[in-house]
């Protein structure tokens, strides 16, 4: 509408980003789906794929069920107790797994639940000879609950905290007992959130890679993702990798479709921000049960983290700090994280702006609407192709051109950037929309454009969400193992890859020290990336 030339350039840049995105993902999918040669009607082959698929779905279903069933009472207890000592710290603890590299969490869980761990020592001391093994289905479920229960609980809690305060006053006024409260007030809210939360958890568990790689064992406890990795890295069996990838894409596609019809996107509101006074839950029995759930949740989440901390501090940290392999891994990780985060944030910002520009005129063409729709869809469509599948596609595409390790840095950066895109989009889109609503006409009427607008208006106002998005994307990339696992070589070892190989070669002390370091690094970035806007300077102006 106004400043036509600049608008055209914005739309062109957005279209270029979208095009690059579609090309990168599309080529990988085409590479996987077009090559359907090879030994595919082998009965053994079919049996293997069928077993892997069945296990993938089984563990995802059980993980989701357990996570959600655990999350509901925890969320209810936390909502009913808006004020107790350490509540805010428990909420922060529940946000931690989101930013914790999966590998570090797995290590912590092994410390507590593993053969030499806390639990089995206790059992032996009690005279129970048979140790519980963390490897296999039990460990996978445990780890998935560890990572996803807090996520579901936070979604539920945010929903419960959105219930208007008048409801509680009316309920108290009417004298509704605890069960009636749950049935008529809390459950309807939870039921509304259930499909979204359960769907999200199921999706995460069905595409889980690192945890299953670490805690699963053999074909009996392997998901499709891990099977793809093994097919390419160990057995070098491209037909199998292709068949598995097609299966994975079909499965995630169906899941996404189902999710869209079943669930509204879960909103992660501010938890613990405002205190609503609750009048219920004063009876002894509800005090005791709330206390018990809160304590169990706290111990379950805190114990593995404390274990990582303790064993990490016991490791020879000085030796690690002088280890050139660690230095190289740190530099590699930092370079990859920075590059992919910058790429992700730039792409997201350009595409959001282009979509807004294209749909700004009063009479938008269907082309412009389609363009904006494609941009909005692309950020969630990336979920269709998990990193390992994307990597597998490019692995097969690049193989004819020589050693795939040569292309590793570029591919890993691109995959990490795309992985972060949905999160970056979610941070940037609302901030950019508010900023545009607030300043769009003003900047146009003053004629501030191009670089001047970026420098004086856009960047200062959007600095915070941009840095948040950047930080979060870096945390994701720093903790990632999926993309690196396929492409990693002697020349490209990231921190998680180094950690994984030290774990594999039984250098446990080294692994513990590295885990502590990597965990802290990612947590710092996550905290920076998700920090609630503390001081609200920007009022109305």
């Amino acid at each position: 509408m106004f400043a036509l030339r600049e608008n055209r350039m914005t739309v062109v840049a957005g279209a270029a980003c979208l095009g690059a995105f579609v090309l990168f993902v599309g080529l990988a999918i085409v590479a996987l789906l077009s090559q359907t040669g090879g030994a595919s009607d082998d009965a053994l082959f079919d049996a293997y794929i069928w077993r892997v698929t069945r296990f993938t779905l089984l563990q995802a279903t059980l993980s989701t069920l357990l996570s959600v069933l655990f999350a509901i009472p925890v969320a209810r207890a936390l909502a009913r107790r808006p004020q107790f000592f350490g509540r805010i710290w428990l909420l922060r603890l529940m946000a931690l797994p989101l930013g914790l590299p999966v590998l570090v969490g797995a290590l912590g869980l092994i410390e507590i639940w593993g053969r030499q761990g806390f639990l089995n020592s206790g059992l032996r001391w009690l005279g129970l000879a048979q140790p519980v093994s963390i490897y296999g289905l039990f460990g996978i479920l445990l780890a998935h609950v560890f990572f996803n229960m807090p996520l579901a609980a936070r979604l539920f809690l945010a929903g419960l905290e959105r219930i208007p305060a008048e409801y509680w006053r009316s309920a108290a006024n009417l004298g509704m007992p605890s069960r009636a409260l749950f049935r008529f007030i809390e459950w309807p809210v939870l039921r509304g959130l259930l499909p979204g939360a359960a769907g999200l958890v199921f999706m995460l568990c069905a595409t889980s890679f690192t945890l299953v790689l670490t805690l699963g064992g053999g074909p009996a406890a392997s998901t499709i993702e891990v099977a793809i990795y093994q097919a390419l890295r160990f057995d070098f069996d491209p037909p199998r990798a292709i068949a598995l990838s097609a299966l994975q894409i079909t499965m995630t596609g169906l899941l996404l479709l189902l999710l869209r019809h079943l669930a509204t996107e879960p909103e992660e509101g501010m938890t613990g921000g405002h205190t609503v006074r609750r009048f219920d839950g004063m009876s002894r029995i509800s005090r005791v049960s709330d206390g018990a759930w809160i304590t169990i949740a706290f111990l379950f989440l805190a114990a593995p983290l404390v274990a990582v901390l303790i064993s990490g501090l016991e490791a020879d940290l000085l030796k690690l700090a002088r280890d050139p392999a660690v230095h190289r891994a740190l530099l590699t990780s930092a370079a990859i994280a920075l590059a992919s985060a910058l790429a992700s944030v730039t792409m997201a910002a350009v595409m959001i702006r282009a979509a807004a520009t294209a749909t700004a005129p009063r009479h938008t063409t269907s082309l412009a609407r389609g363009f904006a729709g494609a941009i909005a869809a692309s950020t969630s469509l990336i979920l269709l192709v998990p990193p390992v599948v994307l990597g597998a596609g490019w692995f097969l595409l690049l193989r004819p051109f020589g050693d795939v390790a040569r292309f590793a840095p570029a591919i890993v950066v691109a995959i990490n950037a795309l992985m972060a895109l949905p999160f970056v989009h979610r941070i940037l889109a609302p901030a950019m929309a508010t900023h545009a609503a607030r300043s769009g006409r003003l900047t146009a009427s003053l004629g501030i454009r191009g670089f001047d607008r970026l420098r004086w208006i856009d960047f200062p106002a959007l600095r915070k969400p941009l840095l948040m998005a950047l930080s979060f994307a870096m945390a994701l990339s720093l903790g990632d193992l999926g993309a690196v696992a396929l492409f990693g070589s002697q020349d490209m070892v990231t921190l998680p890859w180094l950690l994984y190989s030290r774990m594999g070669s039984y250098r446990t002390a080294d692994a513990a020290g590295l885990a502590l370091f990597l965990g802290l690094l990612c947590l710092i970035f996550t905290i920076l990336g998700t920090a609630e806007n503390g001081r609200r300077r920007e009022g109305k102006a």
Partner: protein
Amino acid sequence: MTHPAPAIELRDVEVRFETAALNFDCAIAAGGIVAVAGASGSGKSTLLHLIAGFEDPDRGEIRILGENVADRAPSERPVSMIFQDNNLFAHLDVETNIGLGIDPALRLTALDRRRIEEALRRVGLVGFGKRLPPTLSGGERQRVALARALVRNRPLLLLDEPFAALDPGMRAGMRTLLRELHAEERKTILMITHHPEDVKALADSVLFLDRGRIIANDTLDRFLERRDNAAIDRFLGNA
């Protein structure tokens, strides 16, 4: 109030929205304060946005100072606009916010800085140059916006409910300031308002809109005497 070329002319302008179409046809003489009134949704803001260049007409012609402005970007039109809120960039100090009115790339000379000082003095905000907008009251922020309009020095000033967020005492103060500035500069001012007292205290003439049509374009005295339209009666409180 009879000038040869009208400041603003809308000829058979039509704007179509999904559910409604607005039609404007009017001429506004230069140099006066025109109150733009009418119920919510009657098209007041759209009218100002058309003149400022934030909306494009689907049909018709808009002429400002005798020139067709169809191809002019908002910043190229001889117009300054002040909104109800968010007139200032919250992260830039008052001086910088005003300076953007002189040069959108913020290349300011010593002379420009003196002009900013002078504008601040005229709106009664001496010494506020380094303050950030969030530390100002609503009235002070609107004064800064006025100061920017002063240094921009465009012949037309469009105000979209500039006092809506202010309490009655501040409104009166702003009315006085606007009156004084108008007496000195003789710019053409179009001001949207919901308040009959703003109209009575400030306006030389009134544009009254109802359901997307201009149903009155009168001098203040004539407008206040009108009893022929229910919407105008409701606005003036002539029940």
